[in-house]
């Protein structure tokens, strides 16, 4: 149990970690039992690696700062934002977002005015939320496409703000 494969993996090496071996055993057994098709798994992995990324989403607006979290597991709007980043699934984020969101924002280098209302949405059911970030100043008359360039993944989770016009070419 010592090897938890954090971010180092040696696929090319001859020595497989305990986790790799157990995952391989699961896949082989479930395949031999006829439950799963490895080729379908290939396609799923490929889709998550190449096709599903942050895209435009929907709802959750207001004149306040919104932040999304899942304190109980790591619920995340996968369909629109792709795979969640490791920090979103981490204990520091899951524990602190509902109690000290300004501290979390500080970790991301984001400072909000003291009187800005903050609303944290704990995704405790199957409803998924994404934040529509506030429109930055100096973007009057911009097209939807151009505005979309200012929207980052973190701004849709609420740990970031939309980019300023000066930050994009």
């Amino acid at each position, binding site marked *: *149990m010592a090897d938890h*494969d*954090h971010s180092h*993996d040696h*696929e090319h090496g001859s020595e497989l970690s305990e986790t790799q071996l*157990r*995952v*391989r*055993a*699961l*896949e*082989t*057994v*479930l395949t*031999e*039992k*006829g*439950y*799963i*098709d490895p*080729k*379908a*798994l*290939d*396609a*799923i*992995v490929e889709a*998550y*690696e190449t096709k*599903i990324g942050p895209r435009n989403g929907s709802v959750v607006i207001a004149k306040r700062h919104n932040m999304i*979290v899942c*304190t*109980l*597991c*790591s619920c995340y709007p996968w*369909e629109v934002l792709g*795979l969640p*980043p490791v*920090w979103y*699934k981490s*204990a*520091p984020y899951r*524990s*602190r977002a*509902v*109690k000290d969101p*300004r501290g979390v924002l500080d*970790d*991301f280098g984001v400072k909000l005015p003291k*009187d*800005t*209302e903050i*609303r*944290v949405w*704990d995704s*405790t*059911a*199957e*409803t998924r939320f994404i934040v529509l970030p506030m429109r930055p100043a100096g973007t009057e008359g911009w097209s939807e496409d151009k505005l979309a360039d200012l929207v980052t993944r*973190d701004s849709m989770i609420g740990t970031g703000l939309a980019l300023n016009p000066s930050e994009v070419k």
Partner: protein
Amino acid sequence: MDGVHDMGGTDGFGKVIAEKNEPPFHAKWEGRVLAMQRAMGYAGAWHIDHSRFAQEQLPPLDYLGSPYYRRWMLAMEKNVTERGYATPEELKAGHAQTAGKNLKRKLTPDIVAEGMTRSSFYRQQQGPQKFQPGDRVRTKNIHPATHTRLPRYARGKTGVVEMCHGCHMFPDSVATDRGDNPQWLYTVVFDSRELWGPDADPTLKISIDAFEPYLEKV
């Protein structure tokens, strides 16, 4: 259950550290675990709340010490063996010794997109909606030993119903194989001081999505 997975408000985990240019997967096995989970879900082997419950039942040190996808793998082993899809001996040997059970369908490459779409959690209502937006409600002080989606930090607290999301399958019931038991689902908003005491940031509000059985009228 009152487990370590219920992290909201726990102190001491430190700063949130974002990785720059993070890849979708940090190792090949992570992708395999995710894809297997999708494929078994599509096949109807178990429900997402069974996966969550299995993770919650991991020994606390395993839960906290395992990266995300390893937790998934551990939960998957538990569901595979406890639900009779394979034996622990087969997983240990890395090969099936007997034929598999019949599952309702199988995810194949041609329909992979279907396996990646979330299924609907909406269900036919079983009774009238008890609460309306604007109603003051109190969450119940419950501590079931099984799966629940009412976080500890929000139990026995008074808040306001903001919206109703319709009727959804009830995780507390699904995770323990007692059926969908559909329940109304509401977004309930709490003032930070109700949850974290008089010194809490007055500009902060926190909402949860709460199933009707978690709530009582104030």
